[in-house]
């Protein structure tokens, strides 16, 4: 059993939850603990209740547990929202002048911060308490504080160093007095990576040759955009915030047409606006990569929460018929690799490629061993054109060599109307028009040949098969590990469309197949039925805007075995 401690920090938006979290997570990770963190926040800039769950563990940890060992509420509202999760084992650490509950172990943070000269130091003190509880390295802690506040001048740095020390001593005392009894060994890899889904997607995209990113800000997809904007200072990447999502996708297509490799990052409503542009990508056979970070709909829905509800949208968006690829990474490594691959596949097949994530996935971070990046390369598929170049040359596999303007002797003409080989408008229905349709249809077959196979976790002789895709992977794997039943295997789909041909063989081998999805209908199970004819009757679904916790999934899977 993995020894672990869950800490929940909760407070109003603007109270500084994120700064406390970032200090704790960075120091503990650098000190050799295994760390997992995810956040839940309201769609507001001030007030409400936001929270962060930090799990510190002896072995690596990458899945969400709702259990609460240490609860740090910064306000009564925060306490109230999570009161139901308080168990007899929960330790509540709070300032009893601010928060009221009989179980509180008092941390006089406000008074101590005021004594330092400003209540603003409360957050640093709070972070120090947690670090003291874990007996974290004070050297690492102090270095982090220095880096964090360096820009604000020496006085602020020194005050924060004092603040963190005050907190640290309180934490240490709590530990020594066994108020908080923690014994977790620092067995983590200090050279592991600490990143969230948004980091993995953005860096993966760069590894795959992404050199432009266009977007309109929309939660939860914006974090990838923010990363790209930061990278644009030092890397070859053009970043622009466009006036609307329609402009975003058209800018991306123009960019790809002229030899760039653009990423668009968006969420449900924004992507809905892009669907005509998606269809343009299909018709003009212009590559494009779309990161679609899902959140609950319809319409504005729950803007800051999570759901796997837009698989159907990604599958069927865009009028007319054209091939596409949909990747749904389940962990950070896959997010990195599939994002890179998305660029190469988009270019290779001249189609739109989706990276389907969600709020939980992009906002969750944990430490993982460093990726092997030697095999990940930008592969270019465009050609230097000859004088008589034809953009839509009819070929056996449907893929016409793609030229770009200004490279070679040819002219490159693309058209959203049905066109001939030269890219000129045609209405020759039974001639070239039909040949073009058939050319695009042949690409479906080609794309399918390259589909990634589903990944089986567990033994071949399984009786029960749990299928999942995207962000549920780690939670499902962690749950199954806890069930300790060798009859259960997990079949994960890093690519949800097109499906690999082996899919049906796996399904047929199982006595029982259970789909676990973070949506209300089982969209992926429906897709499996449409493509393979196999009906997944047992579906464990969650759609309140929060990801599954390992604890609740454990109960649900056991019920359904």
């Amino acid at each position, binding site marked *: 059993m993995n020894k672990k401690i869950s800490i929940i920090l909760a407070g109003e938006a603007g109270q500084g939850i994120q700064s406390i979290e970032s200090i704790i997570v960075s120091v503990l990770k650098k000190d050799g603990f295994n760390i997992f963190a995810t956040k839940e926040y309201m769609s507001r800039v001030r007030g409400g209740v936001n929270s962060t769950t930090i799990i510190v563990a002896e072995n690596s940890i990458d899945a969400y547990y709702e259990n609460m060992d240490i609860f740090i509420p910064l306000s009564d509202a925060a306490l109230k929202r999570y009161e139901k999760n308080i168990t007899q084992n929960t330790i509540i650490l709070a300032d009893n002048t601010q928060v009221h509950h009989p179980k509180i172990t008092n941390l006089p943070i406000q008074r101590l911060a005021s004594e330092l000269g400003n209540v603003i130091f409360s957050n640093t003190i709070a972070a120090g308490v947690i670090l003291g509880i874990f007996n974290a390295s004070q050297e690492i802690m102090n270095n982090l504080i220095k880096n964090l506040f360096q820009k604000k001048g020496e006085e602020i740095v020194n005050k924060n160093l004092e603040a963190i020390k005050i907190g640290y001593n309180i934490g240490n005392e709590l530990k020594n007095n066994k108020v908080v009894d923690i014994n977790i060994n620092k067995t983590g890899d200090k050279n592991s990576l600490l990143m969230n889904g948004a980091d993995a997607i953005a860096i993966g995209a760069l590894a795959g040759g992404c050199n*432009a990113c266009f977007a309109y800000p929309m939660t939860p997809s914006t974090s990838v955009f923010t990363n790209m904007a930061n990278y644009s200072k030092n890397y070859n990447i053009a970043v622009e915030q466009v006036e609307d999502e329609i*402009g975003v996708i058209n800018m991306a297509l123009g960019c790809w047409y*002229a*030899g760039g490799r653009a990423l668009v990052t968006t969420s449900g409503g924004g992507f809905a606006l892009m669907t005509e542009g998606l269809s343009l990508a299909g018709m003009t056979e212009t590559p494009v990569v779309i990161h679609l970070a899902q959140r609950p709909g319809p319409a504005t829905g729950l803007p800051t929460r999570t759901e796997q509800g837009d698989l159907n949208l990604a599958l069927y968006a865009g009028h007319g018929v054209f091939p596409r690829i949909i990747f749904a990474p389940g962990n950070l490594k896959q997010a990195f690799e599939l994002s890179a691959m998305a660029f190469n596949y988009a270019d290779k097949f001249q189609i739109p490629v989706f990276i389907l994530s969600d709020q939980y996935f992009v906002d969750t971070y944990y430490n993982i061993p460093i990726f092997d990046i030697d095999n990940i390369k930008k592969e270019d598929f465009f050609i230097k054109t000859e004088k008589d170049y034809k953009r839509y040359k009819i070929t056996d596999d449907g893929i016409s060599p793609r030229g770009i*303007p200004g490279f070679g002797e040819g002219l490159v003409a693309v058209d959203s109307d049905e066109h001939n080989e030269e890219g000129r408008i045609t209405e020759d229905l039974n001639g070239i028009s039909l040949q073009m349709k058939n050319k695009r249809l042949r690409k479906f077959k080609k794309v399918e040949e390259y589909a990634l196979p589903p990944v089986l976790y567990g033994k071949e002789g399984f009786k029960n098969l749990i299928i999942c895709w995207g962000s549920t992977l780690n939670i499902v794997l962690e749950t199954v590990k806890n069930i300790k039943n060798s009859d259960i295997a997990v079949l994960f789909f890093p690519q949800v469309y097109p499906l690999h041909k082996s899919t049906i063989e796996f399904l047929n081998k199982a006595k029982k197949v259970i789909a676990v999805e973070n949506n209300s209908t089982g969209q992926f199970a429906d897709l499996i039925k449409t493509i393979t004819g196999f009906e997944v009757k047992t579906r464990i679904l969650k759609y309140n805007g929060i990801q599954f916790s390992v604890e609740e999934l454990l109960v649900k899977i056991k019920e359904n075995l």
Partner: protein
Amino acid sequence: MENIFDRQQEMAWCPGCGNFGLRKIVLSAIAELGLDQKKLVFVSGIGQAAKAPQYMDVNYFNGLHGRALPAATGIKIANPELTVIVESGDGDMYGEGGNHFLHSIRRNPDITVIVHNNMVYGLTKGQASPTSQKGMITPIQVNGVFETPINPLALAISLDASFVARGAVHEQELTKELIKKAIMHKGFALVDVFQACVSFNKLNTHKWFRENTYKIDENRNPEDKIKAFELALKENPYPLGLFYINKNKIPFEENLPLYKNSKEPLYKRKNEIKNLLLSKI
């Protein structure tokens, strides 16, 4: 003289259409500038005007209705060495593409935007366009247009577009020179061009445009924004010529960090990400 950009093929325009005249003007302008054919890209949306690139020997991106500007900007971002010209109609640019028109002016990519302005929808057969004049009766606006027409020049000047001009098909020489200047200008250059739709606009005919336009005094100072705006508000008759130029604006792509020191197009560039990944330790 043979024009390398000229492409002889059947064209889908009505006999007498203003598009023929503007096509000739554009072909002369790009030939006289001696532009590198390989590095010239036309971008258009949808509409009768947007078919123009089909009838030239050029690179082109014929995209969606209203969406030529973001596509053109994307092309310029991928390769600043390309000369990018948008050819569009009044419905495409000022109607469906209105939002992109506003923000592309703010963004100021180094592109030229030629708008065939015939004050009516041609491809969809005669409905009102954003520049249709009040009172025009159409199959949809059966009691006559009552909405105030958009004034693209005044709008562009109000947003400080870096080059704003109006030509007319009946003023071939003037319009050709305006287009040449627009192409040579660094930044977003708008050339709105009056032309007649012989099939669907019985109000604003070739004759009407001749009688209701006049040439701006060439000696006036086009850098005075207030005066340019005042001029842009003049109607019946409408001024033709260069209204406004702002030589101090930096083109969008030159503001991007990656083009600060080099114009090397994106397809020739690489990123080494090892250190970025290591920064996550």
